[in-house]
């Protein structure tokens, strides 16, 4: 037995080392989050030391790279908001109704073929959507607007918004599909037994029960639309000084301005470059809040129906 002792000790030591390696791997994911937070935060603080925070939030004049650079991002925020709103207006009805069809009406065969097809939409790289928006959708919108006697820009918010909407359909449909499936069957059967039609059952019983899940899916979709970069870089406008609510005009977004600021020939420590980090900080905070609220809502839904695999 004595000859076993040292070998055993060595094994114990080895086990210890491996365990420490595993723990340090897990710590890297935490480091990444804090790395993102702090790298953005520090540069953003540096920016706000040079430029006013209140003007950044409320001001409407954005002119980096000039002698008297001004950084008022209000028009950028409004453009981001409108493009996101268009995307959600496209994706929410289509996504939710697709989910309803798949979980309530479709046969198993249809489900197993259609679900992967919808997932393809989610797997297409965003740069590809951007090309589609800029080359196919935007000119089509200009022609259509022309037909109705309207004037549309080739960088219209509508083109970027619609294509972004197509991109986030699967986000809404697959999560909604999961939550609608999770609504207990007894609720449906009870409603049908009382003489409700199938559509009445879905509208009045299933959807209200699944509502927290659908809202959570929508929040996630909003956060995805806010952070989407390539579609808007390729199809939306650059002008950060124009307020408009007309979706046929060109608008710009937070992500477009981040890319513009960081691909220009500015010094790294100039406010022109640092403005990208200030915009990034706003984006980080907003998407983080949306994600946390979304996760909390889905958690409540899970607890209500005691399910574990969402």
């Amino acid at each position, binding site marked *: 037995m004595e000859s076993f002792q040292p070998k055993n000790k060595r094994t114990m030591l080895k086990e210890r080392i491996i365990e420490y390696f595993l723990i340090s791997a897990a710590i890297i994911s935490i480091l990444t989050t804090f790395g*993102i937070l702090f790298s953005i935060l520090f540069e953003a603080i540096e920016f706000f030391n040079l430029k006013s925070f209140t003007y950044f939030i409320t001001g409407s004049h954005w002119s980096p790279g000039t002698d008297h650079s001004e950084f008022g991002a209000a028009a950028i925020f409004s453009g981001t908001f409108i493009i996101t709103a268009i995307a959600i207006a496209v994706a929410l009805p289509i996504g939710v109704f697709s989910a309803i069809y798949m979980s309530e009406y479709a046969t198993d065969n249809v489900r197993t073929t259609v679900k992967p097809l919808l997932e393809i939409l989610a797997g297409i790289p965003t740069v590809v959507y951007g090309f589609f928006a800029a080359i196919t959708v935007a000119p089509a919108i200009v022609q259509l607007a022309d037909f109705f006697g309207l004037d549309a820009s080739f960088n219209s918010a509508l083109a970027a918004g619609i294509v972004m909407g197509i991109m986030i359909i699967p986000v809404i449909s697959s999560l909604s599909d999961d939550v609608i499936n999770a609504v207990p069957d007894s609720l449906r059967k009870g409603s049908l037994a009382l003489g409700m039609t199938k559509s009445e059952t879905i509208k009045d019983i299933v959807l209200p029960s699944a509502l927290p899940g659908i809202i959570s899916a929508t929040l996630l979709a909003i956060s995805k639309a806010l952070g989407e970069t390539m579609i808007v870089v390729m199809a939306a406008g650059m002008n950060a000084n124009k307020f408009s609510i007309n979706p046929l005009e060109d608008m710009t977004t937070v992500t477009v301005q981040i890319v513009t600021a*960081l691909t220009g020939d500015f010094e790294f420590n100039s406010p022109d470059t640092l403005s990208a980090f200030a915009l990034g900080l706003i984006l980080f905070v907003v998407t983080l809040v949306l994600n946390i609220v979304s996760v909390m809502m889905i958690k409540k839904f899970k607890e209500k129906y005691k399910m574990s695999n969402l």
Partner: protein
Amino acid sequence: MKKTNNNNVFYDPSLAKRHRKAKVFKGLALSALVISLLFLAIFLSDMVIKGKSAFLQTYIQVEVTYNESTVKSYRKAIERKYLNLVSRSDIRDIPLKMKHDPSLMGTKKLQWILADDQVDMYMKEKYYKLKSKDLKALKNLIENNRVEMRFNTLFFTQGDSKIAENSGLASAIIGSIFTLLVTMAVAFPIGVATAVYLEEFANPDSKWSSLIEININNLAAIPSILFGLLGLSIFINMFGLPRSSPLVGGLTLALMTLPIIIVSSRAALRSVPASIRQAGYGLGLTKIQVVRDHVLPLAFPGVMTGSIIGLAQAMGETAPLIIVGMIAFIPDSPSSIMDAATVMPAQIFTWAGMPEKAYIERTAAGILVLLSILISLNALAVYLRKKFEVKWQ
């Protein structure tokens, strides 16, 4: 209550209307699904229609003169009337070729030369800009069967170029491979180790492991462009790694791929039944031995599937790579992970912004190549899952 012709007290006069409404509702749901599939179909066919012509390229047969004046100026190698029809990229090397092969001097040869992009556009019946005398010369060549469409091998062997007909995907493909090698070399071991720690070692109820878990969920939902900001300020500005290099791009993508690998590896580890572990302990194995020799090999197909899906996602990512500078004009393939490089989606983005019409079909063709690689990767993942899936009793 209105009297009805049947005596059923439960009869609801609005029933027909309600049934009609139910039908309309079902139609609505179906049409939503059809619309989203229609989008997919329109989108894919649009890319095929726009991109398929780029796989063919026009060549024309002209007489090449090798003499003293050709050495001085490559423009003298071709008859004047055809000069605007051929690609500059193909004839500018002629003096160099003569230097390597002196026997060419003083000869004349009928040769197939790559055509100018406007000629190519004309042959593909697209919008073209040719002067009327060039067009006349071209029509003359066509009549004499001296114009030919060939498979576009240049598209796969050349790097980016400012000359549309000479530009290809090769350097972007090499750049993508280097970048993804870095990504997987970093993300795979760290991701699997994190998953093993969370599933096999950590106490699932502890604050510590729930902190890691929340963190991973958040990481998966952070907009990709913010990872680019991280890469720029930490990898480039703090560590001083070279801008535009596959090393920086790969590290940035690795952090984005990490959550995907962790989540799928955890699911794979969880599906290995507890009886395997208990049998291992019963035989006196240590925890590490059980995990390394029994649990991990059984979970491996699931881990691989998740990693391939993560790889496919990293391959299509553009925004963070633009921020770390992998978008510059790079005609040559990188030879190491420290060289400046571009990747496939970034190349597509660059071409999409080019003013010449000839780049549109190249962009779409690049998209077709990228999409087919992504679809094959995903198909491979599905195949692996199907083939190695173990159904535990």
